[in-house]
């Protein structure tokens, strides 16, 4: 796109701005839509996971960390219109976009062992950032009853609240984020060359 070449001077902010081409802006609603549909497909297929960040990770692969962070922001704001409790998790989704994007730029989505490692790093980012929100805002529970039950189990065995929420997060998220990362990579690779954004040449 013409606007990206014009801003090709050096400097952190202009490099950041150069990621936001018109195509990248249009990609954001697609990412938001995929974040949402991931949840729907999981319900249809009765899979025991959430897959609510595939869109963010996918945008990270196709357009870099900054665009992915905006995708995370907009996802939780837009879905927050129907369920305001999701607005509290805006920082989590943004951080997942940033981390996934930086990992992608450094080639961490190119080989299978690295994809697994990326999935684990993204999972840890999510768990570390969501734990304070879960504990301080929601008193240790989430809207998922099974997740709250698991936290209660850890509390009953004598752990304190932070440890319980953290352990619950890791158990629940580890499969979810690994599957999300692999789905995002497979889907991004399956995109026909013609429609693949430029950034994807660097990240896949």
């Amino acid at each position: 796109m013409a606007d990206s070449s014009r801003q090709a001077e050096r400097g952190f902010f202009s490099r950041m701005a150069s990621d936001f081409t018109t195509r990248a802006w249009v990609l954001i609603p697609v990412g938001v839509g995929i974040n949402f549909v991931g949840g729907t497909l999981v319900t249809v297929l009765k899979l025991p996971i959430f897959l609510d960040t595939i869109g963010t990770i996918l945008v990270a692969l196709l357009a870099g960390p900054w665009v992915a962070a905006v995708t995370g922001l907009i996802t939780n704001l837009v879905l927050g219109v129907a369920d305001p409790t999701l607005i509290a998790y805006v920082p989590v989704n943004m951080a997942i976009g940033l981390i996934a994007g930086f990992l992608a730029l450094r080639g961490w989505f190119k080989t299978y062992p690295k994809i697994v490692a990326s999935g684990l790093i993204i999972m840890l980012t999510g768990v570390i950032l969501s734990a304070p929100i879960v504990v301080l805002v929601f008193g240790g529970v989430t809207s998922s009853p099974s997740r709250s039950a698991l936290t209660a189990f850890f509390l009953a065995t004598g752990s304190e609240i932070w440890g319980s929420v953290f352990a619950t997060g890791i158990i629940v998220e580890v499969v979810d984020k690994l599957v999300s990362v692999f789905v995002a990579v497979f889907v991004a690779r399956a995109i026909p060359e013609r429609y693949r954004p430029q950034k994807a040449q660097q990240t896949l």
Partner: protein
Amino acid sequence: MFDYRPGDSPVHLLNPVTKLAVAAGLTVIVFLLPNPWEPALIAVGLLGVAAVAGFPGRVAKLAAVLTVPLLVAVVLIQGLFYPGNEIPLVEVGPVTFWAEGVSYGLLVFFRVLVVVCAVLIMVFSTYPKAMMVAFIDKGLSPKLAYVFMASLQFVPEMQRRGRAIIEAQQARGLDLKANLWRRFQALLAMMIPLLAGALISVETRSLALEARGFSRGGLRNHLIEVPDRTTDRVIRWSVVAIVVLVAIWRIVL
């Protein structure tokens, strides 16, 4: 998605920025207040506001659906395991519910309830386009506003496409009740066409947007005007003042 209820109540006539400021102010206030009955009173007040706006039932119902699971979980967990538990409230067999924990659980619940009600009232009483115009007038980037609006419209469209693809794949022999591994594979069979289709439309959309001056700078005119009245300014400054007062009261006392 954006469940706007048209109307001409005083709530509808407020500037969207004012409604956001009130929602944000209430969020800060309820997290500063230490007793459950204080946010509970605010929640009742908000239901009153919803009644003025003409959709109390809708707000109450959706807020209940969203927060009652939280209420049950948080009262159970905090009632049993709150670190400051001293006074027993109820004993059920070997299990004791403690007064402090139940009180803290209720505090968490009412805080969340206030935020949920405030946001729902804002959403139900604001025409989405008017909201974006008001935010752009206050300095929000028009591109971010576009992305927000486009996402609002895109989510239901993606859901429709998703459903169509599921049916198309079922017609080609996809089994929704196969074993776990097969169903994971089915996930890819749905995601790939969904994304490929969406990316093709990205191409078209970005050309269409470019043709309409999307990446141009400069001033923009809007099709609708969103008035910012004196009432709005008074409410906004009162919110700021109340937040500051509550903060001072909490820190000093």
